[in-house]
């Protein structure tokens, strides 16, 4: 019975991706001038894993530093075995990495994946403080902001952003212990930014991003001086975290 194209492809893909039925190489493939069938097949097998490891290293450069090259490579190979790619490109391939990690490494992976996500979200021109003045006074109590799609607000159990920044600054920080932190990751134009948030900043910003009314959101600052809250608000506006205001 002749071997069909489908049969050849199922075998070849299995051999390359999982090492299945490698002993069939001698029957299905020819020898080349200098390499046997199995050695020729190995060119594809090596390429498959190294290509995906390289993709994950691009998405998670700081996680690679935190783990070290060897453990990161092992993590990636486990990832590849568990999550074969099913998409035409690798833009979203690394999205499961937080599931593959625990503790600090899981939070660091969340932070790095948020960076990838905001790169691929559309960005719009930010709203200005002046546009707030266009909101009719009678609708002000219910007015709310529209957050940029290129924004992720992370509430974490470890200070992942501090570690990330320290590595970026050329330091070799120790892996931190538990410690609640919050970071907003956003894209303004072509640049991705990370901004650490104190607990009251996080409460206010989370409410604003969720589309809660402005007045109710700002009240979540609790005991913070009004001028301090105004300063946060201006910084978030000028950073492009919001793209529109809608009347209540």
């Amino acid at each position, binding site marked *: 019975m002749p071997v069909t194209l*489908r049969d050849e*492809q199922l075998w070849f*893909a299995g051999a390359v991706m999982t090492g299945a039925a490698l002993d069939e190489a001698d029957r299905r493939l020819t020898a080349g001038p200098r390499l046997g069938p199995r050695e020729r097949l190995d060119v594809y097998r090596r390429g498959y894993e190294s290509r995906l490891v390289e993709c994950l290293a691009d998405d998670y450069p700081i996680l690679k530093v935190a783990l070290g090259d060897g453990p990161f490579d092992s993590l990636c190979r486990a990832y590849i075995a568990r999550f074969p*790619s099913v998409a035409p490109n690798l833009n979203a391939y690394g999205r499961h990495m937080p599931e593959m990690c625990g503790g600090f490494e899981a939070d660091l992976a969340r932070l790095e994946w948020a960076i990838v996500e905001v790169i*691929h979200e*559309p960005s719009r021109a930010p709203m200005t403080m002046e546009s707030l003045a266009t909101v009719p006074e009678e609708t002000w109590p219910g007015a709310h902001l529209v957050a940029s799609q290129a924004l992720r607000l992370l509430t974490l159990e470890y200070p992942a952003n501090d570690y990330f920044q320290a590595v970026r600054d050329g330091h070799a920080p120790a892996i931190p212990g538990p410690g609640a932190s919050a970071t907003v990751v956003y894209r303004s134009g072509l640049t991705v930014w990370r901004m650490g948030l104190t607990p009251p900043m996080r409460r206010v910003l989370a409410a604003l991003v969720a589309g809660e009314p402005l007045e109710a959101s700002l009240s979540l600052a609790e005991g913070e001086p009004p001028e301090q809250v105004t300063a946060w608000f201006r910084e978030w506006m000028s950073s492009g975290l919001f793209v529109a205001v809608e009347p209540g």
Partner: protein
Amino acid sequence: MANRFGLPDLGVGLGLRTVHYTHIVEAQPEVDWFEILSENYMQTAGRPLEWLDAIAARYPVVMHGVSLSIGSTDPLDRAYLTELRALRDRTKARWVSDHLCWTGVSGKNTHDLLPMPYTEEALHHVAARVRAVQDFLGAPLALENPSTYVEFATVGGMPEWEFMARLAEEADCALLLDVNNVFVSAYNHGFDPRDYLAAVPFDRVVQMHVAGHTHHGTHIIDSHIGPVVDDVWRLLGDAWQRSGGTSVLLEWDAEIPSFEVTHAEALRAKEFIGPSGGCP
């Protein structure tokens, strides 16, 4: 001889790579054209498209894909084709190309250009799919000869150059002739690259690729690293002369140097494809 599709000779272009975005947008260097990797601008609504819009507004663009998987026995991916066509329309790409290969089966993608068995069954299978893609795009698809590292032992097989020529005829498609791939596969499989060129229907060739490669002694990997070796440049000169003139593009994908160095390497093509068409 102009290609039968009436597609223009764009000159000597470069593969667009992210490390060069800033320089290209800010310095606006004189470059004949850019080839984009289609998938880099698919399944995204963000920054990659913002860069691309700026560059496509200034330069002629051609689209080169790696995930059409034209040889796969899985069904054609309609969502992929829809996005591909939208990108073509967005960039006003002069043409769309991909590889004679398959990238996966059973819904999985290896993100590699996997080799075809060059059989009658595969020929008719791929030709039917190429016709379907061309109908969908409303334009000819250019298929690139791959670099390969294995050959199937399937009974009734034919040489790759025969498969490519017959496929182009049966599907009425265009060809992207990668002369580095011819060189790499010739070494890996032990054939003479001149035999390959002799069988190419040059009236269907709308573009040629050159690139660097990595020589391991026992085999050559099409790594797109480093300068193009002189043997490949000479092969380009031979092929270009046979074509009567066509668009040429340098691919450089690993350890990519500055834009100036990359572009200077691409422009070396002019030493080999001069008006005389001869090789130095």
